[in-house]
């Protein structure tokens, strides 16, 4: 019984951490966009996105933490989509180096 509760807690915490990581990256993106400074989603930030995605996927396995896990996964996917869109459309709309 205790072991089962512990397992549930681990999945749940993985979900929460995944969400917090996704929000942290989104917050950095917001600061970057609003301040006008280029903080590229590379290095530590991309590592956070990947870890957040993995934790979210892990948390999405059992039913009781699936919602939290999917939330974290969607945040990571959104960040990835945003990066791709900004990178490729940035090349299209600005013809200068």
């Amino acid at each position, binding site marked *: 019984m205790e072991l089962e509760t512990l397992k549930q807690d681990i999945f749940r915490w993985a979900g*929460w951490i995944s*969400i917090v990581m996704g929000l942290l990256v*989104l917050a950095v993106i917001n600061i970057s*966009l609003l301040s*006008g400074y280029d903080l590229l989603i590379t290095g530590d930030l991309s590592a956070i996105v990947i870890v957040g995605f993995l934790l979210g996927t892990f948390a999405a396995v059992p039913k009781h933490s699936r919602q939290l896990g999917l*939330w974290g996964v969607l*945040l990571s996917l959104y960040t990835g989509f945003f990066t791709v869109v*900004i990178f490729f459309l940035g090349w299209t*709309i600005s013809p*200068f180096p």
Partner: protein
Amino acid sequence: MDSYEKLINDAKSENVQPNDGTKKMKKAITSSKWRLILTTITVALLIVPTGYMITFFYYAFGTKSTTLMDVASNTLYLTEPNTTLEELEFNMDFSLFSMDLGFQQYKQIGDEVYPAKNYHLKFVFNDLVEKEIDSKLEKAYPKNPTQTNQWLVHPNNEMDFNSNDEWRVLSGLPDETVVEAYLSLNDLYTVDDVEKEMNGVDVIWAAIYSGVEDNLLSSNGVLVSPIGYPVQPDSTYWSPFRGSVSHEATFLEMLKGLVPYEPIAEEVSPHKNLELPERIAYLEGNGFKTYGVVVTGPKKNIEALKESDMIRALKVGEVKLWSWKH
């Protein structure tokens, strides 16, 4: 176990149940409280990046950023006499639902090209909401155009300046200077004829008669801007006239290209109305004749043009130290 102990035990076990329930309830309340907080934060943090993606999609697939840039540069080529722009001087920045466009306008005086004005335009989507112009010119073209304050004047129109005074100013300049001069003609001529007449100077820009320059009023009574095109071959990579076989054909093509964006072009241009469809129809039916040109060259060579029967009036533009290499 007597009945008293049994009663105590029952009471204890009954107490355990509500405690567990309260704990679970507290946990559920805390969890849903956090869910609510994080949902709110998530929604708030998605607004700006989503806005940026919409902005990028708009400038990539809606009104393209490069189209707005072309409209701005082509408008200046056609409405600002003696204008050239450099591609690498363009600066483009994107922010939420808006685009900033900065570039520098140049003028040829003598054989050198000098910076004339810095433009900073701010578009919210495709609406020009801010225009800042920092002029480096010593002789600025009238800011608020009227029917008679233009420097290139149609033979039938009146002029605000005294041409004799301008000739006197020109004659007082040192011989070692090169001058940009606005020459109004006494009739309509083809650009080729004007070029043949202007010896020892470069004809840079020709104002083209499009049926409305007699009094600068369109058929519906609106004050319009003069239009024209650069005459000299332009090898600048950025220029719409680069490699152009016929500048007249490129000019007409550019005018037609501006028609769908006429409101933007009118906002970019210092002159408020272009009335392009009416003028394009005239040009297609009547051809291209000029009533005024911008020339540059040594002061003495321009002074010699006073004897030409073709010239009605002169307005002296920018003056620089000698740079004539012809």
